[in-house]
């Protein structure tokens, strides 16, 4: 009896051990195994489309055997960092654009500069946003995100306010937002706000606003934090007024409580008439059947403050030459007009293939996003982007919540973010 139980346990363990073991890198018959990582929710259209594209790529390239490694966004990068530390990263993966330099600086990525020279750069958007201080390129664009001004056409019509134009300034925006703010049930609190200004995701909040007001966040190859400036203070003061004395934006606590992703529910549910949003924010608005339009970011004293994130394919430095070639083949396949047009139909990202972008984006929104992308700078990316922006955002948020005076928050935020950058780059030659 005991022997039988031991045998059964051994059998179950063997079964667990043999469940789906990974394959090698190259076979004797010339086939190359390519582990391809990307982030998507199971069963989502993005997941399904990516699998279809991989299938088509494999059919066209029978010598390349693609093994997919998919996980939702946060978990994907959690696993990836451990895989990199353990020398087990996929040979090619989709990286959030802001993380490319983090992986590159830690020696995880192959330098794609020479490969990028073999394509016609004019056909694609975003390549330059991936170039580092030394002119090297470690990622090839997959899809782009840039914030523009979303507005609810129905709420504008009901309030009798003219829709935003490319000539709008921050004063125009504030004036319209005040007219759009309504307290319909008379409880003393607005039910509809004119504008959402704060978001835990700063790409659609204080970052472009500070730049539009003439301030900057980082300079000198994104290694010097310069946020402690009168212009940045003016930008944050404008935001505080919007949430406070002017009262046309939901306050910090209400917005923060919704979290990074759910904050866009405010626009999708008609609680705010305007909001800054990247291209992917069209999805919740479309799903919620909001009649909306998009306009360029308003002009500040020093421009619009356009920024962009270019999510990119990267190749592992540990990939064999054959795997790196196969990875590049996949990357150029995905950048083609056909796959890019298919990807564009998901509504998740701006295609980086300019032909696909011109034909596949919705006519009424495409132009605004593409012009914003053309004008955009990068989002201060460097090897410690996650860490220094977290340090900085913590202090900026303290200012926007009213807990700390703006001047103090900017000064402290600058010092702490700079310390993070200096700590990493001290003694580094690159």
């Amino acid at each position, binding site marked *: 009896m005991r022997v039988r139980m031991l045998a059964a*346990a051994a059998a*179950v*363990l063997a079964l*667990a*051990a*043999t*469940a*789906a*073991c*990974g394959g090698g890198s190259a076979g004797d018959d010339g086939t190359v195994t390519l582990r391809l990582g990307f*982030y*998507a*929710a*199971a*069963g*989502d259209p*993005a997941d399904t489309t990516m699998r279809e594209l991989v299938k088509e790529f494999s059919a066209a390239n029978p010598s390349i055997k693609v093994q997919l*490694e*998919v*996980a*939702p*966004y*946060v*978990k994907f990068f*959690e*696993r990836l960092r*451990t*895989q990199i*530390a*353990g*020398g*087990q990263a996929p040979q090619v993966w989709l990286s959030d654009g802001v993380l490319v330099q983090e992986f590159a600086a830690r020696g995880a990525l192959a330098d794609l500069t020479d490969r990028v020279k073999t394509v016609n750069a004019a056909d694609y958007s975003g390549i330059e946003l991936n170039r580092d201080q030394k002119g090297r390129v470690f990622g090839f664009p997959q899809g782009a995100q840039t914030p523009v001004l979303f507005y609810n056409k129905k709420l504008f019509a009901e309030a009798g306010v003219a829709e935003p134009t490319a000539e709008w300034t921050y004063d125009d925006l504030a004036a319209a937002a005040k007219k759009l703010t309504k307290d319909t049930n008379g409880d003393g609190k607005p039910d509809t706000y004119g504008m959402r200004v704060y978001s835990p995701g700063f790409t659609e909040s204080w970052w472009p606003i500070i730049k539009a007001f003439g301030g900057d966040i980082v300079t000198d190859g994104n290694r010097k934090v310069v946020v402690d400036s009168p212009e940045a203070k003016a930008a944050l003061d404008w935001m505080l007024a919007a949430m406070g004395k002017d009262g046309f934006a939901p306050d910090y606590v209400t917005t923060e409580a*919704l979290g990074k*992703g*759910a904050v866009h*529910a*405010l626009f*999708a*549910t008609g*609680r705010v008439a305007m909001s800054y949003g990247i291209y*992917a*924010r069209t*999805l*919740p608005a479309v*799903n*919620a059947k909001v009649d909306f339009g998009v306009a360029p970011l308003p002009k500040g004293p020093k421009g619009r403050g356009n920024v962009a994130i270019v999510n990119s394919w990267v190749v592992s430095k540990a990939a064999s030459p054959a795997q790196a070639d196969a990875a590049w083949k996949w990357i150029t396949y995905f950048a083609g007009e056909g796959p890019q047009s298919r990807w564009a139909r998901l509504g*998740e990202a701006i295609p980086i293939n300019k032909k696909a972008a011109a034909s596949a984006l919705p006519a009424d929104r495409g132009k605004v996003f593409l012009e914003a992308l053309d004008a955009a700078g990068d989002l201060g990316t460097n090897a410690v982007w996650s860490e220094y922006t977290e340090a900085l955002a913590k202090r900026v948020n303290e200012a926007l919540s009213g807990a700390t005076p703006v001047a103090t928050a900017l000064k402290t935020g600058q010092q702490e973010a700079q310390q993070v950058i200096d700590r990493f780059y001290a003694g580094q030659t690159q």
Partner: protein
Amino acid sequence: MRRSISYVLVLAGAVVMLLPFAAALGNSLKSFAQYIQVPPVWLPDPVQWDNYAEVWRRTPFGLYLANSLLIAVLAVAGNVVTSATVGHALARMRLPGKQALLTMALGTMMLPTVITIVPNFLLFRSLGWLDTLLPLIVPYWLATPIGIFLMRQTFLAIPKDFEEAASLDGANPWQVFWRVHVPLAKPALATLAVFTFTTSWKAVLEPVIYLTSPENYTLPVGVLSLKGQFVGNDQLVTAAAMMSLLPMLVVFVLAQRYFVRGTMSAGLKG
């Protein structure tokens, strides 16, 4: 009167504890538009039973369930056997340096998982266990610190008279352990079994790190795989989470009697 107040307090406590569960249940039956409504609504209208079906359509939920069950059952079996034997040895046998061994074992409890995840990843990689279920099972077969501690305390609490009487009847140390001590430690073993089951069942970090093939995913990883970066599938994630709770509830209900007795006796050792 005092009893009524007690009942009211207990009832109020129960309501407070159940409120998040009720909210989650309600959320699992909402449409996405209702899910993101500000201010939130409590009751789903209309009730979206299809969220549960959609989870099964989008993911091989049954496979995730089977993987989680296989891991949890083997983890429970392994941990109960090894922790009981180690705990018994530390409580009842004369071993040189056993106090130091116990201190070391307990010391490992102080290390957060994130600290050990990379060394463990390298270890499992060298063993060829990545993307298999073994890293989620085998560590439980090497006794866990909490299991060792719980069982040691339990065996320490059993009076020596039982052991001496059995020895006089000719029982060897193994027979004393198996026929005398283990039956007396059933509540603690049940407690350890429930703890191990729940720990294994709800583990997220390790499965996410070690498993890359969807056919090996456990239930929590499968639930999280529904979460989109831009598109909110939160109502589906909540529906999947509600379904993944059921096996844990069944285990707890079945082991409840022993579990309560086990936790009580652990606290009342004389």
